[in-house]
């Protein structure tokens, strides 16, 4: 792919001095942004850097307090997404806006003004076929969207934009749900779209993607533009420095653990998902003491179910689970925790914490009944406060006050409180599910350090993550989960991204390690 040059010529889009305030918070501070015809322009920044806010201005969702937007040489004010679409701007959201029971064509033509009383689906299908050939977006117009893979659904969203004659396309974190293969095909689509004159804004926080698939990159930090550079004239280290304001190169030594005894075993475990479909099928795995065991995979392949059967939150239909020589299959959650499990669930806001509770109440949520924090009848408020103060100091939690509801705290600090509670159990096994999703680099690094510290103390850590980069950085051994089965287990040093990617997509590779 050729991203070595930046298209010259007049910009198709200019945003000058955009400022947006929410109360006292300045989300965008005099932001300048420019997009040229035929370029992929990456918008890079941590969570909360202001990327989405800026794009929401462009898409007509927010009105800026200051600044102007110039599109194709015309000063414009975009009051709603409809205005944006009329100007040829389309946005592909992170979470797709598709109706699953309907066909690809129906999803694409829905809401068009040109639709008459009766839908002319066959001519729409022809146009979709044309577009799909033109840009290499393989899709069957008659297919039901619910039957399509995530990567294909994304193609439907892109075609939907093209169908409406968009020439400025905003992609919000488009790779977050894709396998490496799907990602590759997306990138080649982007290439063919810009070569035919479209312009693309690519929102991301992944440095590798910026390097692979953009002409230029604008880096945002704390609502301000740090700089705009040509991708060919920069590198990942420099971009990381711009993004977080310091150099971050996370490196974690992996540990050989082959002689350690198992601390958690799953033997032929099967379990239903929420729709009562057998979702874990004869899943077996062994977690050793003092290792971080990573589960890689595309979302929805049984990761949540796996975590929940271990934690006792989901009934096991067949097979058994043994933790530290004790059968824990289908024991109540409290029993399993008392035997040595700590579990950091993926949805820290919905499951991990109670947002209207204070830090101290959240910290004793799993031990409110113990003598340490409770007398015969009443909770021990003094001890609860001491615990909270200790955690705030030890974990560097930034909080407006330990007695206030935690819902005013940032995601990173919430995760620290959650981790603190779980780690204070002195667990034998720690299960973490997407532990750093939505956190900025600094907070993610901190969480990783805490996890590694547990490993070094002999805890067996099961890390389930959708972020392959995270798994490859942190884990000692790596397994791939696909449709409720473990396809392969390998040491980190033998891990091959290409191979893992194929397995995440369901292709079993016969390797020298063999499958388990």
């Amino acid at each position, binding site marked *: 792919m050729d991203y070595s040059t930046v298209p010259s010529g007049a910009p198709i889009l200019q945003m000058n001095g955009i400022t947006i305030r*929410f*109360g006292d*918070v300045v989300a965008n501070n005099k932001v300048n942004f420019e997009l040229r015809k035929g370029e992929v322009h990456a918008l890079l920044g941590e969570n909360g850097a202001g990327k989405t806010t800026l794009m929401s201005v462009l898409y007509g969702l927010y009105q800026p307090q200051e600044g102007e937007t110039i599109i194709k040489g015309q000063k414009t004010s975009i009051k709603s997404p409809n205005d944006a679409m009329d100007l040829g701007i389309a946005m592909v959201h992170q979470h797709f806006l598709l109706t699953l029971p309907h066909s690809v064509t129906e999803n694409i033509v829905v809401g068009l003004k040109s639709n008459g009383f009766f839908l002319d689906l066959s001519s729409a299908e022809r146009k979709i076929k044309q577009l799909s050939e033109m840009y290499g977006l393989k899709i069957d117009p008659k297919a039901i969207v619910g039957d399509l893979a995530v990567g294909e659904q994304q193609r439907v969203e892109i075609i939907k934009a093209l169908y409406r004659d968009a020439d400025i396309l905003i992609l919000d974190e488009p790779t977050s749900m894709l396998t490496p293969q799907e990602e590759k095909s997306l990138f080649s689509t982007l290439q063919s779209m810009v070569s035919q004159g479209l312009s693309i804004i690519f929102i991301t926080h992944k440095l590798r993607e910026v390097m692979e698939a953009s002409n230029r990159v604008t880096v945002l930090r704390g609502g301000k533009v740090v700089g705009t550079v040509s991708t060919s004239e920069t590198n990942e280290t420099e971009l990381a420095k711009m993004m977080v304001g310091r150099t971050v190169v996370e490196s974690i030594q992996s540990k050989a653990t082959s002689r350690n005894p198992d601390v958690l075993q799953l033997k032929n475990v099967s379990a239903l998902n929420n729709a009562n479909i057998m979702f874990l099928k004869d899943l077996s795995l062994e977690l050793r003491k003092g290792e971080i065991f990573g589960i890689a995979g595309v979302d929805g392949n049984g990761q949540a179910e796996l975590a929940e059967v271990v*934690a006792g*939150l989901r009934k096991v239909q067949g097979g058994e689970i043994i933790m530290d020589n004790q059968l824990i299959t289908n024991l*109540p*959650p*409290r*029993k*399993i*925790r008392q035997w040595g499990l700590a*579990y950091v*669930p993926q949805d820290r*806001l*919905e*499951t*991990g*914490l*109670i*947002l*209207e*509770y204070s830090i101290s*109440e959240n910290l004793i*949520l*799993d031990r*409110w*009944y113990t003598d340490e924090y*409770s007398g015969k*009848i*009443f*909770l021990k*408020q003094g001890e609860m406060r001491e615990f909270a103060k200790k955690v705030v100091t030890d974990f560097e939690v930034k909080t407006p006050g330990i007695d206030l509801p935690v*819902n*005013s705290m940032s995601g990173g600090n919430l995760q620290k409180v959650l981790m603190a509670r779980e780690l204070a159990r002195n667990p034998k096994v720690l299960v973490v599910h997407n532990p750093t999703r939505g956190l900025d680099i600094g907070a993610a690094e901190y969480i990783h350090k805490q996890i590694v510290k547990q490993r070094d103390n002999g805890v067996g850590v099961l890390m389930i993550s959708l972020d392959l980069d995270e798994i490859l950085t942190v884990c000692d051994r790596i397994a791939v989960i696909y449709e409720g089965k473990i396809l392969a287990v390998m040491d980190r040093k033998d891990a091959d991204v290409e191979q893992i990617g194929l397995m995440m997509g369901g292709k079993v590779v016969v390797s020298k390690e063999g499958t388990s």
Partner: protein
Amino acid sequence: MSVLTVLSQTRQKVGDIKFFIPFASGALAFVVGAIILASAGVDVGNAYATLFRGAFGSVFGFGDVLLKTISLLLAGLAVSVAFRCRQWNIGAEGQLYMGALGGTIVGISVLGAIPGLGILAVIAASAIFGALFALVPALLKVKFGVNEVISTVLLNFVALLFIAFLLHGPIKAPGFNPYSPEIAEESQMPVIIPGTRVHAGLIIAAIATVGVYYLWKTKIGFEIRSVGANIKAARYVGMNVGKSVLVTMAISGGLAGIAGGLLVSGVQHILIEGISPGYGFVAVIIALLGRQHPLGVAIVAFFFSVLMTGSETMYRSLGIPGAFSMTLQALVLVFVLVGGLFVIWLNKRNGRGVR
């Protein structure tokens, strides 16, 4: 967004503007009430003066305010306890009636005639009857997932009709009216303010208010609150959700039952069909307006009692129907609801409401 969602979201956050909403709502309700009265050709000033004179103008009148407060407060606490666990118990009326039945059965038995013990037995029986009756929807919910809103609403009719049946037959006193026999004197609550009907139940209601305040600081209270605040989190940390629901509903039904028992033991001394003029339903509004905080519930219960007592006087001296008091109550609820939405809207506008 349902009524319950709006009001429970704004609960507990006392401070700045939210604190004034209930007071502003009360005032606005009176303003709109005035418009209604004026449009009916009533002298508004005189009507409101009569209302407040009825409530505060005489020792006996104020005594009646306190008397109604006992029932409204206990029933309001009952509902608020359930709401803290996100159990939408709309069945306080039925539980209240079953409590009244329990108190009556003991009061007309030999147990009720034991000096010094009769009253305690009556209160205990009414609490137990109310609790057991509330456990029916609770068990249906825990075992079979039956929605408690529907089951508790319907069980109100079961309770009322069951008592009507008993009063027309099995426990009917001799004579023409469908009344139960009078309970023993040893089962009757003593009057504590001479010249009024205020009985010792006021002390019980006060103790219950303090008790509910401290309930939330106990082990089981924490478990109940957690289940109410976030059931997924509670399950995940190993709390027993089913147990919490059962305990909550037993406490809730018990409190409503005591409210019913006190109507027999402290006021009527017999069981009759219309012994409660819907205290258990008004209690739902009281619990919501009181933000499920015992002190808030106490204040709102007193305020509603003033409205109810005063409007009785308005009816007697001016002929303004009792429905006007209900209109005022409903207006307060509407304005508080709008105020709650206003706070949510403010939060959203300031970009710190929904994460």
